[in-house]
Each structure stands twice: as structure tokens, then as C-alpha cells.
């Protein structure tokens, strides 16, 4: 199998961490670079976490570039699910010694895209600040993005466990707006599908059988990560970011539907809401593919496979 070169923009974050593990271990993916952004925690913390994870899993050769310390136009909002460090639950993870790239993420992405022989795919699982900055600063490389797979947004379902706005969109809606207007093909993997990949008792049982340092690390992460979900909604942790990443490996895990997507910049209760025009009332051509169905069992089978030695 030829590994596909992938750039990954993330804010680890437990679920980003698991996505990083999957990206590194999948033979389908050649992780050519990772960029970090603020979101689940401050940029210093998400970057530190990223380096620790990569070094621990033997991926210290993957170049990492630090990105935005704040959203483009809004005050910084930090997530709470991942704890103060952004990666609680694995205090034994050693500090990293691998170096950080000297470039800002926006310039690193531009350099990697410009150097790529063929357009390449980017996976993004945090607020889109780095990608928004890329649109503003380096429009010349945008045609080199084959596709952006982004964990974000919510479109179809609102329920007791699904809010009308999604965190990544809420954190930097201006960046999302820039990316949606940029002409870059974008797949939005939103809460509609990611809230269906929940880690509950059967999943813990399967994961518990992977009796390796990596398997135990992932379970330790999940035990912390699920606290917020468990306490507020009564469900296990949702593997938002791993599902987005998994679509590089198996695009059939999720079904998509095209639509024109707008993002609300001035709401009161629905600030940052992503609104799809399924009836084409705006008369605008589709600017995104929106995830609406997921095969959660097959996703988990893929995850277990990648974690086993």
C-alpha cells in the first residue's frame, strides 16, 4: 500500500492524541507534518502535548510547527474536557526532547503545500485559526490542498447530548468562514456523526484487551476524557477527532451530503452555529460535504486494529 501524505492540524487534547496515534500507526498515512493550534488548551500546552505524544509513540521524526495562540477575531476560549494541561490522565508521559520547527504553522503549511508534487489532504481537528490564517496569508498554495477533512460543526441533530453549536466552530467562526469561502474542498465531520462514536463498556472491554503500553495509555486518556461527558450527559467520551482522521484511511465510514454552509458570527444562543442550506434557498453552490451517517462499529474495529501490535 502506498501511504498517502497527510498534514494534520490539531489541538491535543485527548481525542486529537488518539488521532495522532492512529495517523502514525496506519500504513495508509504518511504523516508529513503536524501543526498545533489553541483550542482544547493554550498553544503552549497543545504543542507540548503534541510533542510528548509523538515522541512516546516513536514518531519523533514527524515535523511539528506551532500555530495560532488565539482565534483570528475573538477572545481565546479554551475547552474544559481535557483538563488544565489539555492531556490529563497520563502524568507518566515523559517530556519531549524532539525539536519544534522554527516556522509558524501557517508558513510551515505553506512550505509543505508548495513543495508537494501533487495536491495533498489536510486533516484538522481543532479551531480553524491556522487554516484561516493560511487563506489570508498564502492564497497561492490553496490549490495544493486536495481536500480538508475537518472535525467541526453540527447540522442535523440537536438533542440532550448534542448542542446547537460545536466547539471548534464556536472558538474561531471567522476562520471557518474564511476556509468555507476559500474554494478548498472541505468535508465537515460534525457532532451529528462524532456523537455516535462513544466509548462505552463494550469499547472499554475491547480496548482493555490491548495490553500494551500504548493500549493502556489510550485507556488512561479515555478515563479522564470521558469525565465531562459522563457527568454532564451520562455518556462516554466521543471520539470526534479520531473519526475525522479515520476517514483518510477508510472514507466509507461516513456518508456525506453536499450543501452550502454558512457560519453565524453574531448569534446570542447560537453563536458559531453552522447552518447548511439543504434546500438551496441562498442560491449558492455547495461549499462543503457534511457528514450525516456513520458506521461506528467499523470505526472502532479500525481503531482496535491500529492500536494492536
Amino acid at each position, binding site marked *: 500500500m502506498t501511504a498517502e501524505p497527510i498534514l494534520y492540524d490539531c489541538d491535543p487534547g485527548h481525542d486529537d492524541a488518539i488521532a495522532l496515534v492512529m495517523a502514525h500507526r496506519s500504513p495508509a498515512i504518511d504523516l508529513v507534518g503536524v501543526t498545533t493550534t489553541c483550542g482544547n488548551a493554550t498553544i503552549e500546552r497543545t504543542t507540548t502535548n503534541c510533542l510528548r505524544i509523538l515522541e512516546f509513540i516513536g514518531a519523533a521524526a514527524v515535523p511539528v510547527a506551532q500555530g495560532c495562540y*488565539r482565534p*483570528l*477575531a475573538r477572545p481565546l476560549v479554551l475547552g474544559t474536557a481535557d483538563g488544565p494541561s489539555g492531556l490529563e490522565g497520563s502524568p507518566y508521559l515523559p517530556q519531549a526532547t524532539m525539536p519544534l520547527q522554527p516556522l*509558524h504553522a501557517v508558513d510551515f503549511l505553506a512550505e509543505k503545500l508548495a513543495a508537494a508534487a501533487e495536491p495533498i489532504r489536510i486533516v484538522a481537528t481543532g479551531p480553524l485559526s491556522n487554516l484561516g490564517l493560511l487563506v*489570508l*496569508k498564502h492564497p497561492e498554495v490553496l490549490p495544493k490542498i486536495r481536500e480538508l477533512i475537518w472535525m467541526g460543526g453540527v447540522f442535523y441533530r440537536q438533542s440532550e447530548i448534542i448542542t446547537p453549536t460545536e466547539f471548534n466552530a464556536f472558538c474561531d467562526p*471567522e476562520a471557518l*468562514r*474564511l476556509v468555507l469561502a476559500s474554494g478548498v474542498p472541505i468535508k465537515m465531520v460534525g457532532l451529528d456523526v462524532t456523537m455516535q462514536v462513544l466509548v462505552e463498556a463494550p469499547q472499554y472491554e475491547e480496548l482493555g484487551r490491548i495490553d500494551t503500553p500504548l493500549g493502556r495509555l489510550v485507556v488512561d486518556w479515555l478515563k479522564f476524557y470521558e469525565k465531562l461527558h459522563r457527568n454532564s450527559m451520562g455518556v462516554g467520551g466521543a471520539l470526534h477527532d479520531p473519526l475525522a482522521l479515520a476517514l483518510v484511511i477508510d472514507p466509507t465510514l461516513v456518508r456525506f451530503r453536499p450543501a452550502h454552509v454558512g457560519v453565524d458570527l453574531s448569534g446570542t444562543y447560537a453563536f458559531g452555529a453552522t447552518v447548511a442550506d439543504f434546500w438551496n434557498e441562498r442560491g449558492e453552490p455547495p461549499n462543503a460535504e457534511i457528514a450525516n451517517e456513520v458506521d461506528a462499529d467499523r470505526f472502532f474495529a479500525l481503531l482496535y486494529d491500529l492500536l494492536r501490535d
Partner: protein
Amino acid sequence: MSPAGPNAETDMERIVLDVDSAGDDILAVLYAAASPDIRLEGVTTVTGAAGPIEQVTNVVLNTLSLAGRDDIPVAAGAWRPIVGNAKEDMEAPVNVEKQLIARYGERLKTFNPKAPPPRRPAHERHAVDFLIDTVLAAPGEITVVATGPMTNLGLAILQEPRFAASVKRFLLLGGCFGTPGNMTPVSEYNIWADPEAARIVLNAGADTILVPLDVCEDNRAATGMMTRDDLYDLDEAATDNPVARMIIDVFPIYIDIWREFFALMGFPMDDVITVALAAVPDICTMTEPRFVDVVLDGRLARGQTVAYHGRQILPGGGPATTRVCTGIDGRRFMRMFKDAIARYERSGGEPSR
């Protein structure tokens, strides 16, 4: 050029000038390149009133060639604002030109014409990187002057957390307080064109001087506007001055347009005033440092500048670091401008006054 005298290199204000190359930006570039008190480290360009970034950049390159200053780097910057406004609203300034064609016909050919290919390429770095590199190389020494939408400055702050704390001062042309706006009744073009960027800059906590329409596009500040009398003065002083010649040839139409469309007594020198303040801050009176915020929501008031004066019941505000210009010594300013342009005289004689 006059002897160094009190204007030795070390006393010069080091500036980077960020422009969108509308008419008065050209004059601002020419002023900055000639002023004995200013060392122009570079010019960065941004999409704005003069159209796409290539046009803006080429206009600056050609202007500096005319000035004989091909040594000054010109770095191209942002091609669009962070959020911007509705497409038809963004294109409105260009459409104003079309309305004017009926009135001025052939004479409009000198108003923002398509720039011919420049003699030299732009700097290889992006404007944002040029700004960051220049400012971080000399912390506390560089005044960043912006006379267009503030997209490049906003991006520099977003990309480099040390940027705002490392500039000596921001000098910004933008906003309006008592004077009506030129985009909406309360919004001025530079702020309106990228309100999110302006808000980032005004919230950055850096020492800032804001030059609003009140001191340039208001007939109460008419002494600071360029009239045909000033063109006559430039002509009187010039023997062999290609820059003065260009201004005399090109700017009558600007004077006429601003008289007809905005009912102003002359061509407002917004951008030149802003640059001039870098070295001579006392040509304007200004407020104490205040927090100035920008309205982002809606359409009517989007881009409005709001200064926090006095005391309010509702909490709010931010860093009180912006002084807002409230008045101008227009005669003194126009003399400074004409003296600077006279320095492009090639016949070697002292410019006449």
C-alpha cells in the same frame, strides 16, 4: 538633499508604512521617502481602496521609482480582509468611480489608473513577515504607520505574540467620531473594510495614535487639505522636480472629485498627515490615551469607532492606549508636505518658499 544637520540618521524616526495605494497613499509614500526626519524601512501593501494587491504593490513600486528610491523594500501583503463585508458593498468605492465618469469623462484617466509593470520586483517576503522581522529586529524603535485597512497589522499580531509589544507606536489612519463616516454615516473606510483587524490592533495594548476623519475629511480641517493653490506653490518651487510635476499633473482630478462627491474644500491628505505625525506629533492635538473599540455587528454601524471617554455604568473597555487626534495645524502641515516634495528637486537649488 539638504545637509544632515539636526537630522542625522540616529535622530530619524524609523517607520514601516502600510498602504492600500489610493491617491493620498501615494503622497504618503513620497512624503515618507523624502522627509529628513523619517527613515522609511519599507513599505507593505494591503488590499483596499485601490483594488487588488498586485495593483496596490505596483503603484508603490512605481511611486518609489519616480522618487528615485528603488532601495526601499516593498512587500506585498493581504489579498482580502479577515471577514470583510458583502461583495457589493466592498465593490462600492470602485463603483463611485463609474458615477464620476459622466461628470469628468477623459480627465478621470489619471484617477487610480492601472499601474504599468514596475521596474523591480516586490520583496520576496510577505508583508506580515516583513513587519514582524523589521519590528522584532529593533524592539521599541519602529513606528508602524497604517494608512489602509489594518489587515497586515492584525495578521502580524495574530502570528507573532511579541509584535505589538515590540513596536514603538502604531500610527493609524481610520475611524471617525464627530465627523460623518464615508462608508456609512458612522463608519470610515479603513476600519469598515476590515473591522476585525482594526479591533485586533486597537486591543493590542500598544502605544497608538489614531487619525480619524475629523482632522482630515472635515471642512473644519480645510487648511490641511491640498488645493490648486498648493499645486501652484509646488510649481513655483520646482525647476526640475519629477515628483512635483507628477502631483501637479495627476492631482487636480482628485481635488475635483473630493469637492464634488464629499463637498470638501480640497483633497484631504489623511495618509500624509498620519505619516507626518511619526516625526512631528505636535501637528495634531489629541486626546489622552483611551480605549477605542470597533463595532463588528450589523451593517449600518459595522466599522464604527467608539472611544471610551468619561465614565459609564455598564462595564466594558480595554487597554486605554490610543490617543485620538482632535485638531490639526493644517498650514504647518501643508508647508511640511511641500518642503518634503521640494526635496525631489534635481536642479540642486534650495527650494523656494
